[in-house]
């Protein structure tokens, strides 16, 4: 039988038993906003990963009957004619009205049509990750012939909600992949620069300064305009990731270099070196782990910049292109004033970008404050 430790004893006694990770986590937990942001970020990645299941419809299925269909709100309680009620979520059906002169379509709610929704119901079939075949969705209409649009539709009658959910997969993952690449470049160059110092440090620092002094967007644009037009969407996706990280690694390199410089003369590093530890062992076993929390914090703060960059590039047509669905590609639809005046719900992917970017920023701030648990104890 395990003996239970009184949790208060641990809380009152931040003794030497606690590892650095434990201390970091303890400091991080105090930031309520950062904690909430962590939940949002994880949720966004889950939505992106299970996009086919979470999205009510196939993002590519068009419907000529439902062009620029406005969003429908969910009603939770279903009132019967006789005043009876039941908890049965539904959306109000809408009928299309065409103006006889301008031929423009307007949608009006039809009080007699209720489209009931069901959780985990059967809908359009899909293949998730090219492996799992299913037709279960998180939310479907009880009647398969009835469609519902919680965030409206675009100019081809495609469901904006489903498209935004699928966009999360690409936009959120491109941030992560781009940062991973920048991290590799940044840790390598920053590490070499900080560990060896001297001429190498000089050269790397000048390169970093040069890249920081150049305006990134024109360079990004130039690079992506140079990509061959006939590349497959997947190749293009990877190429854009590489382009984003080629310019984005400098900040991480600076952080890593700074940490290496300050750690180089720490007692434990000198001890490890005097003990005859090889260079690789000193770097990977002793130095990198002690700066891991800093690196994680900088990485978290670098991801939103990547997401914004991808969105901006795709938005002006030089990043990802259809059939890939990213938030930037979706926002391209909201580019001209006529379509946003007619269908303001096309901004939905923009709202998703803002939530994701804010969440990453708060999370990164919280992590950065928590990254130094020892200095934090003083405050």
């Amino acid at each position, binding site marked *: 039988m395990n003996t239970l430790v009184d949790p208060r004893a641990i809380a009152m006694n931040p003794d030497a038993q606690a590892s650095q990770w434990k201390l970091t986590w303890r400091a991080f937990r105090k930031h309520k906003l950062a904690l909430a942001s962590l939940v949002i970020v994880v949720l966004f990645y889950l939505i992106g990963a299970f996009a086919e299941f979470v999205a009510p419809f196939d993002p590519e299925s068009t419907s000529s009957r439902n062009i620029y269909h406005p969003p429908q709100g969910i009603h939770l309680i279903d009132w019967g004619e006789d005043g009876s009620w039941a908890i049965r979520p539904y959306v109000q059906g809408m009928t299309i009205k065409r103006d006889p002169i301008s031929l423009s379509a307007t949608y009006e709610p039809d009080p007699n049509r209720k489209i009931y929704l069901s959780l985990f119901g059967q809908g359009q079939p899909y293949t998730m990750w090219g492996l799992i075949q299913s037709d279960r969705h998180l939310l479907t209409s009880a009647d398969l012939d009835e469609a519902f649009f919680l965030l409206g539709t675009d100019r081809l009658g495609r469901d904006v909600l489903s498209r935004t959910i699928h966009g999360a997969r690409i936009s959120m993952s491109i941030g992560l992949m781009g940062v991973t690449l920048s991290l590799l470049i940044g840790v390598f160059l920053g590490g070499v620069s900080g560990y060896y110092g001297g001429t190498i440090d000089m050269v790397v620092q000048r390169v970093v300064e040069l890249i920081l002094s*150049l305006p990134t*967007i024109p360079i990004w*644009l*130039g690079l992506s*305009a140079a990509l061959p037009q006939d590349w497959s969407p997947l190749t293009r996706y990877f190429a854009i990731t590489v382009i984003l990280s080629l310019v984005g690694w400098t900040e991480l390199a600076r952080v890593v270099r700074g940490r290496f410089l300050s750690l180089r003369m720490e007692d434990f590093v000198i001890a490890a070196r005097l003990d005859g530890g090889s260079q690789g062992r000193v770097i990977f076993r002793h130095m990198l782990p002690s700066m891991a929390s800093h690196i994680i914090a900088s990485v978290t703060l670098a991801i939103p910049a990547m997401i914004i960059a991808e969105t901006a590039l795709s938005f*002006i047509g030089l990043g990802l292109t259809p059939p890939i669905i990213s938030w930037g590609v979706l926002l391209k639809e909201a580019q001209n004033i006529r379509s946003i*005046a007619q269908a303001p719900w096309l901004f939905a992917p923009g709202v998703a970008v803002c939530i994701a970017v804010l969440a990453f*920023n708060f999370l990164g701030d919280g992590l950065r404050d928590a990254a130094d648990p020892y200095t934090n104890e003083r405050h």
Partner: protein
Amino acid sequence: MITYVIRRLIWAIPFLFAASLVAFALITLPPGDYVTTMAQTLAESGDQVDQARLAALRARYGLDQPLIVQYFMWIGGVLQGDFGMSFEWNQPVADLIWERLGLSFILEFSTLIFAWGVALPIGVYSAVRKYSVGDYVASVLGFLGLALPNFLIALVLMYIAVVHFGTDVTGLFSPQYRDAPWSWAKFTNLLAHLWIPVIILGTSTTASLIRIMRANLLDELSKPYVVTARAKGLSEWKLILKYPVRLALNPFVSTIGWAFPQLISGAVITAYVLSLPTAGPLMLQALLAQDMYLAGAFILLLCCFSIVGMLISDILLALVDPRIRFR
């Protein structure tokens, strides 16, 4: 001071050289060259393609030479003000870019002034009245300003302007001034339109400047000299403005160095959304049409802008802080 400025100027030369290499690399990256693209367009429109003429063009632009020779021919031309021909416009690039770059510069410079003007008082206020309602409001607005991409703000403003006010916020001039020669009336018309892109472009810079100012000033406010000055009976605002603010201003000046490249970057996309007659939209169009001499000229000049911006920020910093001069 003069030696410092000269040293800094000499330092800028390799940077400018590297920027020109980057711009040239971007020109030559796309497959095919200017003449191939032109021959293709001619063939598509059914014109006779005269091989001798193409060869003459190739020789004129040195396209049959190795890359290194091409680079020196290009940069040699650039130094004499000849940026090559725009294939799409059939005009020398130099004729197309200067007015747009001028407007870009006005836009970015006004934005910088705006960002400073707004961030300085708000930053000082948030630091002095730490954790007050005003400080929280400023922090929340600051976070929003950092998180919202410029082009989204531009789109939302455009939407609000069209739907609720029935006005158009795009462009920098009213239609009657668009092609008119410069005059006082045109200039005031520019100012009347300029504030919208300035606010849109300035949000993120202003937000980060507020955060920097607040953090710097908070560090200074807790130092003993402030307590001493207060104990001596100096009036509170005079004390704060004269000593800690002046010290906190130092890193503030150095921010021009990084804020300027960011502004140039952001301006490209904001200008595209608002269809401003600045460098960004034309550069984009040139990139999409693979009109590489035009695009390369813009990339080169925008990079030079931001390097010069860094230079100015370094010199200003040395003016404000004597310690840097003697390092």
